[in-house]
């Protein structure tokens, strides 16, 4: 538990005491974090109630805790990045409309009573949407939202990590890897030797960059989403749809004649069954990337919903004694979510490699080495 460099000049009872302090502080800070979120909840609800006073008649001091709204607020995309109560970073709003052209402004301009600015209205439904005040105009929302900003951050992290790893390999040609480079080497070699090479076969160099990028992109975004204040990027179905479509395009632009022959004439199928097999195969072509998309999206979103529901339980019961039990269970769930983050990145990469391998495999005589 204690940092490794301290263990050399510290005795065991002191180490144990410091570990105990760390664990206690961590367990206690979990409910405090949720308390901070709940504070912001009641402030936001008061602002909303003040604005829509025609609709919401009751202005009681004790607002009802709406767990559905809290969960959706943390899962959905947003035009500002909220790390904690009061620590909100407004993000740029970039809108393109055919009559007004490109407009860009900060989303903090929407912090007035009507959520309105410059002819645009920010709707707070399940997810935030910018609609023009004049309904007839079409507006394309190209803003840097929370998910986009988080993706840019993870892209920066990936470039930094792999830039340094590549530099380390270049400067230490032929000698053993050291430090962070050796940690990355474990993951990279695992993907290359266990995932890509067995499934794609001898021509794997062509697809290795894409599959490694895919694995680390999904992994870094999964892990960033688990941090407090993190954005739910891979739990956004548009992101997973894009990744699945890229895999789909790569598979079909690299497929050979055998792959298409399998679609219209699967081997070993008697002629009478062909009218059934062909639609099944064609549906299968589209179901594979669809299942990739849904699997990653649902796993990540479900995990976040579970954690948020657990913390919300403290406020549904309105009791501080529920907090230690819930925090311990949520800690356990957090560890499971970290494991799921790794597994889902691995599964996405493995299935992409298998689909690419099945599209480029040459002959039936050469079997996979089982």
């Amino acid at each position, binding site marked *: 538990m204690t940092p490794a460099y301290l263990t050399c000049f510290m005795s065991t009872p002191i180490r144990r005491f410091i570990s105990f302090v760390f664990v206690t502080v961590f367990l206690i800070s979990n409910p405090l974090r949720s308390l901070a979120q709940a504070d912001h909840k009641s402030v936001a609800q008061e602002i909303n109630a003040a604005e829509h006073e025609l609709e919401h008649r009751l202005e009681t001091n004790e607002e009802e805790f709406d767990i559905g709204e809290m969960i959706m607020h943390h899962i959905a995309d947003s035009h500002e990045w909220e790390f904690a109560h009061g620590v909100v970073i407004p993000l740029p709003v970039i809108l393109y409309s055919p009559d007004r052209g490109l407009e860009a402004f900060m989303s903090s301009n929407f912090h007035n009573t009507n959520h309105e600015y410059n002819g645009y209205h920010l709707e707070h439904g*399940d997810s935030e949407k910018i609609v023009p005040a004049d309904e007839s105009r079409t507006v394309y929302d190209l803003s840097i939202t929370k998910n986009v900003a988080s993706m840019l951050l993870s892209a920066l992290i990936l470039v930094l990590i792999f830039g340094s790893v590549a530099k380390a390999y270049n400067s230490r040609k032929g000698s053993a890897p050291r430090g962070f480079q050796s940690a990355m080497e474990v993951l990279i070699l695992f993907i290359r030797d*266990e995932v890509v090479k067995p499934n794609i076969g001898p021509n794997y160099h062509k697809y290795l960059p894409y599959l490694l990028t895919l694995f680390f992109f999904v992994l870094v975004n999964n892990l960033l989403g688990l941090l407090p204040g993190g954005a739910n990027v891979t739990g956004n179905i548009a992101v997973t749809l894009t990744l699945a479509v890229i895999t789909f395009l790569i598979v079909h632009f690299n497929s050979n004649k055998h792959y298409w022959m399998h679609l219209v004439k699967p081997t070993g199928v008697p002629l009478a069954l062909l009218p059934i097999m062909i639609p099944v195969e064609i549906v299968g072509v589209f179901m594979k990337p669809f*299942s990739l998309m*849904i*699997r990653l*999206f*649902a*796993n990540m979103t*479900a995990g976040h919903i579970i954690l948020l529901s657990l913390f919300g339980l403290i406020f549904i019961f309105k009791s501080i004694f529920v907090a230690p039990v819930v925090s311990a269970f949520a800690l356990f769930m957090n560890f499971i979510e970290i494991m799921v983050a790794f*597994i*889902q990145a*691995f*599964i996405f990469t*493995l299935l992409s490699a298998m689909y690419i391998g099945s599209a480029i495999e040459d002959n039936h005589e050469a079997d996979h080495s089982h």
Partner: protein
Amino acid sequence: MLLQILLQAAEQSGAGLAVMGAGIGAGLAAIGAGLGIGRIGGSAMEGIARQPEAAGRIQTAMLIIAALIEAVALFAAVICLLISFKL
């Protein structure tokens, strides 16, 4: 008798029958996933017990198949979510 109580509760609670259906569906999907992955885990344990040297390969295959089964259960969970949020 139980069904009558359930239907009455769904009607009076204001959430509607669709949301109750979504809840039951999600529960059934969880049962399905639990059964499927439980069987996989059991077979994997047996295989590792028979041949401990193959433990690494068996474990990898177990994780892959568990993820595939879980994907199907999550299909159902996503549909239940869609129903309960009325999309």
